[in-house]
């Protein structure tokens, strides 16, 4: 009640969010995300220039950069990471753009949407393992055509995955980033005048894709620009997918830095810090390059619209984009199926298409050991998602999202600054301060990554709720808190649960932060699964990758079932 008292009397509605209160939660969220990133960056910069008192680094020096430059094949590692960033982002965006251009508003569009949406919940590492089991020399693809077409009766000696150019790695990233970009595009679509533009451009004789690109795409791209940069940053610095699918000698930059970070020789921390700064520079260069591409793209688009060329028949292009979307979703699902088969395979010699026998042995062997990892994953994911959900609700309730710019940029910061560059610094700081790896510390670090996704996921349904419900309830004499608890939150049950599930999946799939902050003492299914990748025990990998998929899937399942149970008798709540 007292929250009203400081209000500007002329506008009591706005005063549910008094200035002081609004500052509190959005300020807290800003601090929870912004401060660790700043501290982490500082913790990386210091050692890179030789400053790390705990390890005897007391004076400024550039020698660690010299040491870094002397690492064999460093340039090649850098170039592979750079190419991965640009190619992955470019291709994912191009396919999503062409597909949306060709099909937005059609039945095929919503069908593909249903096919692609679940992909978001599948952790990167699990999707990557699935791809390995498909395209490896002994993978399902080769078994399908052998020995009939290839004549191979033993596995060919190919460097796939881990091909030196990183093409498999790029493919593995594209199949995961495309669904992400597709879903953010979907979220932005209602804000552009899609149908009017389509009808107008069609009446002028433009093909669907051309008409869309000229009239709608610039508006749409502006909306999804931050997520595109997030994809770019992620692809330039990804570790888990690169360890599973990327080239080995030399490995992409981020993988090599991670190895230095995890090296038992603590002196390597200096080298790793210098490497992390190089990684930051690399990501910045990739972004600058992307900005240049944006300019070129907008010039091309202007040319295209100025030329008046209609390209009325674009069926081929349209269908290729649709095929690419379906193919990439299909690859991921087929990969998961192969993982399942491997996890229950008895003897499975090449080139047999299916195992000779099936056994539950791999599961029985792995599950007892995986127990702790599963418990840790679930408790970490559910507590970080729950805290993030509470903060997100508080933030939106206070209208913090309307502060606009600052909050939005800070929310995207953890997605745009490569994890490596600040999480490593955080680890160094926490070690220097004498913190041992602990669950609360890991939880705080997970929140940096979980919070943005939960806030972004909740804010759209939050703003979409008809405000007149609240106006009406206020007129009935209910306080803002009563309205939040009795009207808004119950009406947003599904949206809240979905946001929780998104946060849960993000936490469960986090690799690098868990690895570095958990310091090997706290393990999750994801760190365990990636650790298995070097071993080559396919049955164990199958089990872990599936576990890794099942845990977040469980979160989404609960999110979709609970509203049904809770609102069995309320038709309007089940949509």
């Amino acid at each position, binding site marked *: 009640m007292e929250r009203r008292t400081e209000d500007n009397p*002329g506008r009591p509605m706005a005063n549910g969010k008094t200035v002081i209160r609004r500052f509190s939660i959005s300020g807290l969220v800003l601090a929870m995300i912004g401060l660790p990133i700043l501290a982490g960056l500082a913790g990386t910069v210091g050692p890179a220039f030789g400053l790390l008192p705990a390890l005897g680094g007391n004076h400024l020096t550039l020698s660690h950069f010299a040491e870094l430059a002397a690492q064999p094949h460093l340039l090649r590692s850098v170039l592979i990471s750079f190419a991965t960033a640009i190619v992955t982002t470019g291709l994912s965006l191009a396919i999503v753009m062409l597909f949306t251009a060709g099909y937005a508003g059609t039945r095929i569009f919503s069908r593909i949407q249903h096919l692609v949406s679940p992909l978001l919940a599948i952790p990167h590492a699990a999707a990557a393992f699935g791809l390995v089991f498909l395209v490896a020399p002994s993978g399902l693809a080769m078994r399908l055509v052998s020995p009939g077409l290839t004549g191979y009766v033993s596995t060919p000696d190919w460097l796939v995955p881990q091909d030196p150019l990183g093409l498999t790695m790029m493919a593995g990233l594209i199949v995961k980033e495309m669904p992400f970009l597709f879903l953010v595009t979907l979220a932005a679509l209602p804000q552009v005048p899609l149908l009017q533009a389509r009808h107008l451009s069609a009446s002028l004789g433009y093909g669907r894709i051309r008409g869309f690109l000229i009239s709608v795409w610039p508006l749409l791209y502006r909306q999804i620009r931050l997520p595109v940069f997030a994809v770019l940053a992620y692809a330039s610095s990804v570790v888990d997918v690169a360890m599973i699918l990327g080239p080995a000698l030399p490995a992409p930059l981020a993988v090599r830095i991670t190895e230095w970070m995890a090296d038992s020789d603590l002196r390597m921390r200096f080298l790793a810090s210098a490497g992390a700064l190089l990684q930051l520079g690399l990501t910045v260069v990739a972004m600058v390059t992307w900005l240049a591409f944006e300019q070129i793209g907008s010039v091309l688009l202007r040319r295209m619209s100025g030329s008046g060329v209609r390209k009325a028949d674009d069926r081929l292009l349209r269908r290729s984009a649709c095929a690419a979307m379906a193919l990439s979703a299909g690859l991921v699902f087929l990969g998961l199926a192969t993982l399942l088969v491997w996890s229950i395979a008895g003897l499975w010699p090449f080139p047999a298409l299916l195992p000779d026998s099936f056994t539950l042995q791999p599961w029985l062997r792995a599950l007892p050991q995986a127990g702790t990892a599963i418990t840790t994953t679930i408790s970490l994911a559910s507590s970080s998602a729950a805290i993030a959900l509470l903060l997100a609700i508080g933030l939106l309730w206070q209208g913090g999202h309307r502060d606009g710019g600052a909050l939005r940029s800070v929310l995207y910061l953890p997605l745009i600054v490569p994890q490596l560059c600040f999480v490593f610094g955080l680890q160094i700081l926490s070690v220097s301060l004498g913190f041992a790896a602990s669950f609360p510390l890991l939880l705080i670090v997970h929140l940096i990554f979980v919070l943005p996704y939960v806030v972004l996921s909740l804010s759209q349904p939050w703003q979409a709720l008809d405000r007149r419900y609240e106006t009406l309830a206020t007129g009935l*004499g209910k306080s803002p808190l009563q309205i939040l608890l009795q009207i808004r939150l119950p009406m947003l049950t599904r949206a809240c649960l979905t946001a929780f599930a998104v946060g849960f999946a993000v936490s469960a799939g986090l690799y690098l932060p868990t690895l570095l902050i958990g310091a090997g003492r706290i393990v999750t299914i994801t760190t365990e699964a990636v650790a298995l990748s070097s071993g080559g025990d396919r049955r164990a990998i199958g089990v872990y990758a599936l576990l890794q998929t099942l845990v977040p899937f469980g979160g989404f399942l609960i999110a979709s079932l609970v509203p049904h149970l809770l609102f069995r008798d309320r038709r309007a709540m089940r949509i």
Partner: protein
Amino acid sequence: MTPDTTHGLHLDAICIALDGRTLLSLSAHVRPGEILTVMGPSGAGKSALLAYIGGFLDPVFTGSGRILIDGDDLTGIAAEKRRCGMLFQDPLLFPHLSVGGNLLFGLTPSIARRDQRRRMVEQALIDVELEGFFDRDPATLSGGQKARVALQRVMLSAPRLLLLDEPFSKLDSDLRQQTRGLIFARAKSAGLPVVLVTHDQADADAAGGPVIVIGEDSRR
């Protein structure tokens, strides 16, 4: 004429502006049971007027002027303490609550005993020919039934005045007349001052009270 400020609703030099441009400025007295109809083209600030009276004015607008109900000044009071019952063009029944739950939500807390609350809600349903609808899902009701539940919900909250924001515009003409008649009759018998915002001359005629036309610099 000195207006009798102890009865009914007094709007005293209300002025609503958007970006420094005055949308409307008016003074009016609405006696208990009387309906003041405000007409005008869309964008003229009709809904903003209701929002100002109710205390929900969007911060992009600036409003000034005093609102008095039965001699009490509402101007600085928080929206949830003004007891301005509102009806919109959609019934806006809360989809997660039963019909009875919606009414219980509206029913004034001054009635504290559970069984008495339940009885009052049942009676309110009977009053609008919806006997036995307590446990129904609002989504299964017809348009007219929903409108009646929405009316009862606001009446149970013991409002001091009613603000109607084109509440009939989505109903077809038969239902429209019925619902209009019901709402006006209930407001009159409860002695509530009503401010009605509408596009429709027929609404104004049915209301039978004073009419203010805004956005055209004319008053009738």
